[in-house]
């Protein structure tokens, strides 16, 4: 077990290095100069040069890369000159909101998706299955921002049930979390459905039936746990995608997460923040994947033992 984790962590270090290099290259290959954006068109060339020096942009690319890596190891992505503070600090300010939103969405998606998937997969081809299949395809096919705005118009403006944007009370969480959760719910439901449907065809389900169990007992007692295994992996993988999707949702609902931070940072060539956000998210995604992997091995005793030996 420990060995497995260590191995994964080692790969993780490599992955983070790759991710860091990739981002470093992308932001630097991109046209546009952070100093020009920051100082505006009126700055004189000397001022620009001075800022370049402050930002370290006058040094050779490779030297920049090395010091970037060196600092990144210490989780230091430098100061965001634009925000006048360390990039990591700015990112950590916003991170909790994004995580909160992502977790809420995940909770909704998992609870609703699992239930729908279980019911549908228990009887593949049945009425419920068809309805759920249709509904889940539909859920995945609307642009997130469109859904978000529609929800605002209906629930905040029309029905006056929920606040439209921002943070504060738990009610503020409802609309953004639901918006973010909808497509994810569909994914979980579909995956659970197919996984349960497949499990229901396994011989051990037949064994369970031959014990005289009722269908619900078979479904929950035998099919569910086994079908959870792939679902857990995908939920783990998808939480990363969810954090990405949060960018758009946060913009719609003025949710103070990483979303607007990263969009602004890209637009303003705020290298430090772009690097900090992307790498932090990459790190989180990696950890989530690791957790999903470990959970997977815990759920599936076959793999658990292989890992142990």
């Amino acid at each position, binding site marked *: 077990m420990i060995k497995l984790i260590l191995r994964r962590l080692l790969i993780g270090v490599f992955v983070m290095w790759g991710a860091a290099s990739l981002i470093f290259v992308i932001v630097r290959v991109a046209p546009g100069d952070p100093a020009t954006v920051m100082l505006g068109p009126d700055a004189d060339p000397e001022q620009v040069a001075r800022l370049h020096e402050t930002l370290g942009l006058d040094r050779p690319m490779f030297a920049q890369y090395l010091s970037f890596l060196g600092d990144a190891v210490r989780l230091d992505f430098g100061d965001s000159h634009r925000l006048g503070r360390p990039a990591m600090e700015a990112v950590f300010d916003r991170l909790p909101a994004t995580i909160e939103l992502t977790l809420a969405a995940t909770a909704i998606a998992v609870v609703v998706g699992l239930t729908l998937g279980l019911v549908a997969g228990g009887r593949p081809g049945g009425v419920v299955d068809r309805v759920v299949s249709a509904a889940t395809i539909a859920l995945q096919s609307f642009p997130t921002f469109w859904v978000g705005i529609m929800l605002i118009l209906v629930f905040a403006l029309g029905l006056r049930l929920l606040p439209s944007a921002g943070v504060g009370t738990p009610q503020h969480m409802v609309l953004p979390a639901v918006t973010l959760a909808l497509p994810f719910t569909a994914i979980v439901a579909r995956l659970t459905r197919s996984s349960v449907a497949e499990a229901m065809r396994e011989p051990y389900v037949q*064994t369970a039936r031959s014990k*005289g169990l009722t269908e619900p007992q078979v479904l929950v007692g035998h099919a569910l746990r086994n079908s959870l295994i792939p679902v857990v992996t995908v939920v783990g993988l998808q939480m990363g995608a969810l954090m990405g999707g949060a960018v758009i949702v946060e913009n719609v609902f003025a949710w103070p997460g990483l979303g607007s931070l990263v969009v602004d940072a890209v637009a303003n060539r705020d290298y430090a923040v772009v690097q900090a956000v992307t790498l932090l998210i990459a790190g989180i995604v990696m950890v989530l994947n690791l957790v999903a992997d470990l959970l997977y091995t815990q759920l*599936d*005793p*076959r793999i658990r033992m292989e890992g142990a030996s």
Partner: protein
Amino acid sequence: MSDVRTARAGGSPVAQHEALLQVDGLTVDLPGTRGDLRIVDGVSFDVPAGTTVGLIGESGSGKTMTANAIIGLLPDGAGTGGRLLWRGEDLLHAGAGRRRKARGHEISMIFQDPLAALNPTQRIGRQVGEILRRDGVGRGEVRRRVVELLDRAGVPDPASRAGNYPHEFSGGLRQRAMIALALAGNPSLLLADEPTTALDVTVQARILTLLHSIQQDEGLSILLVSHDLRVVANVASQVVVMYAGRVAERGPAPAVLRRPAHPYTKALVRSVPAVRTKTALADPLPGAPATPANRPAGCPFHPRCPIAQDRCRSEVPAVREVAPGRFSACHFAEEVLAP
């Protein structure tokens, strides 16, 4: 075999050779690509109490479907006909609740591939004891009975092995666990669908011996499904030979295998080589086995039959008693039977 024997708890011992189960004109239809397919077509046979009945036939002949129909676990959309008289009660037309209660408690089943048939994420003990727990037996009692059952099925060190997962068992042990699981509900009839096909010969021999000894001890009836004549010959007292979803021949095992009353059985018997002596290669039957999906008209066996006549091509032979206790679905059974 085993020293520790579990006394059959309760249940009136059934008199020998009284039919515990009568399969009467059983049909199974499954939805196919071109309409419903009659997979099992008018199969009749008896399973007397306390005996082993062998059900043999080549792949696709409908053995598994027959067994599944008996325990009531056919795929969705399957249609059935005929009767399944369980101690005189027609189970086929009984309600779903009655059928479910029969499963595990009166009729239980073990399968060909014990790894697939055991839930990979549950410990062996839990799976074996599940039926007891559902019956409301207390925790401690369940544990005790599980250990006893595993022990009875020949799992060494049952107390600690109960905590293992299926993949930690060898093939033979898995099948033993499966047997323990099937016995947990104290059934009277055990359906064994190719229980040893996936196993090595040495393991197969041990499992067959185990099944036999359990049967002896507990007066259990076994319907042993197999495509291996040698297995059936060695354990069954009655044998039912199926071909393309129908019964080709049935009767007492030694008699059927020694002196078949159907050309198909005859060919089967001839194609089984002996192990210890070198047997010459038999002249094989031509063609491939018929399946329910492409069942020739008339006698389904006629395209491969060395003695087929015109009559066989058009007239479906009925299963008839051709000698005392011997039933055959061949128009010329008597000639085949004649030495």
